């Protein structure tokens, strides 16, 4: 009896905490948006040089890894696709298969997971250590809103860079898939690309891009809020960093599933 | 808000007045630098200054440095006690040539030559 009670109680507490956390993320989002729009009129603009430096850290530096992973992913999809389709004598259908799944699904997913791993941890660690050393308090008492100064630039950089990374990931994966298909099915890369563009429409590319915006938002908010909530010394910092990466990847995959369900009905 | 500039005996005298603070020091800076650009010897008169903050003092420092680079004369006159204590805090009272008045400045130059 007491065990069921404590189970129910425990579940209730976890649910409450989760709702509270989602609420906090939402508040952080609204507040960032507020500073982006109203900041310039209140003498608290979101600084462009900071946005650019965040874009560099979040986006540009992630390009090599994103390209490498996407390229490999394209090759793997071609290998698996051809192997599977051979059983139905339909290996030439591998091209639309790759084209659809890369643009709608895997390009954005790889880009998001790389960014979550790289920047999700880095942002949480940076904000967390600023929180611990009272730098966040220092900003506040100087009359500089930490959300405006720290969160808003990250959010904007994320929203600007994620679509670009996604399109880069798409093209790397298609090139990877195209090269392998070309070697095995004696198809030139240009023919492959032509057939890709016959298959996909702008809608498919946009599906990836729209998702990339949502994923970028999730990563930024989860990383920042975990950074701000750091307490309990360096152990707490490590916990927040790990939590930030795990939570953002989980959020990305679940959000992706929900998206895919609604966009492909 | 412009500061009054008076030319007497070869000096351009910049009369600062009121509160020379964050909002007003850019005007003081411009007035001083403009005079120096015209290759004039500059005296900054602080007699009517009620308050000067570090941005005002920074403008004086910049003017002094520019005058030295251009081999022009630069001095402060009519420094009040309040202004003096701001200068003293950063030991700038030992850096600027400070005189009671224009006449004191001229007397000083004549004594040297």
């Amino acid at each position, binding site marked *: 009896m007491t065990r069921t009670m404590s189970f129910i109680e425990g579940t209730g507490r976890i649910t409450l905490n989760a709702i509270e956390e989602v609420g906090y993320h939402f508040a952080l989002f609204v507040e960032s948006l507020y500073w982006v729009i109203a900041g310039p009129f*209140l*003498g*608290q603009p979101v600084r462009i040089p900071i946005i650019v430096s965040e874009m560099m850290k979040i986006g540009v530096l992630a390009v090599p890894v994103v390209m490498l992973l996407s390229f490999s992913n394209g090759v793997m999809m071609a290998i698996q696709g051809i192997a599977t389709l051979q059983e139905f004598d339909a290996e030439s259908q591998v091209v639309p298969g790759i084209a659809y799944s890369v643009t709608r699904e895997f390009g954005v997913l790889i880009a998001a997971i790389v960014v979550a791993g790289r920047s999700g941890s880095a942002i949480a660690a940076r904000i967390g*250590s*600023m929180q611990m*050393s*009272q*730098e966040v*308090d*220092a900003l*506040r*008492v*100087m*009359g*500089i*809103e930490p959300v405006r100064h720290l969160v808003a630039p990250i959010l904007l950089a994320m929203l600007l860079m994620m679509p670009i990374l996604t399109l880069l990931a798409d093209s790397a994966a298609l090139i990877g898939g195209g090269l392998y298909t070309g070697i095995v099915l004696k198809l030139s890369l240009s023919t492959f690309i032509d057939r890709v563009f016959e298959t996909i429409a702008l809608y498919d590319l946009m599906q990836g891009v729209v998702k990339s915006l949502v994923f970028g938002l999730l990563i930024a908010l989860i990383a920042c809020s975990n950074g701000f909530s750091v307490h309990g010394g360096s152990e707490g910092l490590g916990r927040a960093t790990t939590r930030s990466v795990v939570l953002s990847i989980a959020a990305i995959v679940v959000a992706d599933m929900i998206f895919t369900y609604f966009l492909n009905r | 808000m412009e500061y009054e500039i008076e030319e007497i005996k070869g000096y351009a005298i910049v009369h600062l007045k009121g509160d020379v*603070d*964050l909002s007003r*020091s*850019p005007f003081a*800076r411009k007035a001083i630098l403009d005079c120096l650009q015209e290759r004039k010897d500059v005296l900054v008169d602080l007699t009517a200054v009620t308050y000067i*903050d*570090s*941005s005002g*003092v*920074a*403008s004086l*420092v*910049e003017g002094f440095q520019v005058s030295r680079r251009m081999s022009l004369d630069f001095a402060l006159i009519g420094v009040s006690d309040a202004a003096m*204590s*701001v200068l*003293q*805090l*950063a*030991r*700038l009272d030992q850096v600027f040539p400070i005189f009671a008045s224009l006449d004191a400045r001229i007397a000083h130059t004549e004594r040297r030559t």
Partner: protein
Amino acid sequence: MNSQPIIEIRELDAYYGDRKILDQIDLQVNEGEIMVVMGGSGSGKSTLLRHLLSLNRPSAGTIRLFGQDINGLPSRKLHEMRQRIGVSFQGGALFNSLNVEENVAFPLREHTKLDDNTIRIMARMKLEVVNLAGFEKLMPSQLSGGMIKRAALARAIVMDPKLLFFDEPSAGLDPVVSADLDELILRLRDAMGVTIVVVTHELESAFRIADRITVLDRGKILITGTTREVKESDNSRVQNLLNRRTEDVPVNADEYLQRLTDDLTGL
């Protein structure tokens, strides 16, 4: 000059969870005064400071700075007020990604449209004031404890504040460096006429710089008065604090035993 206190705290209560940290705090700080808030750890002095900086919201009571209730102020007004206030944090809280000069210049870059030359001269002037000339280009991680405190002080005074807060200025410093810093605090008040609030547990430093001292103990003010009044106080708790005696709390045998054996099995 004594028309209106710079700081006016009325009946301030603060809780962390269910625990009452501050209990009915009343305090006034006048213009140009150095007020030292003294107390041991757990006295509530850090919490009081966080409330004065508007980093925490009080459970009850009001805090007025420059005559304005900081918790009833629209955020824009609060931002403006904060530009007239400088804070030197215990650990310095310098921005680790910026060098010393950039740290000191940071508030000016954020809040003013001054010329770049003016900003840099101002920052270096403040570094001269705190005797850190020549260290402009160092990063915070390359500074010693005393240098960090002085750089933080330079940043706190770069906007020529009218009100300056120090959190444990002498904590972690050797006596000579600490005495230098106290000297600097006195010079700043004399030259800039700034009102200063120092939160500390260091007796020596407190008596060196204070005009008035307020002694905080377990969330309550024991006494507020001039250094002499505090020294001559006949309150035993004040005297215990001044003489660094720990207090003997009478033992309640039943409760004590209960605390030691609570929750144990088989008892």
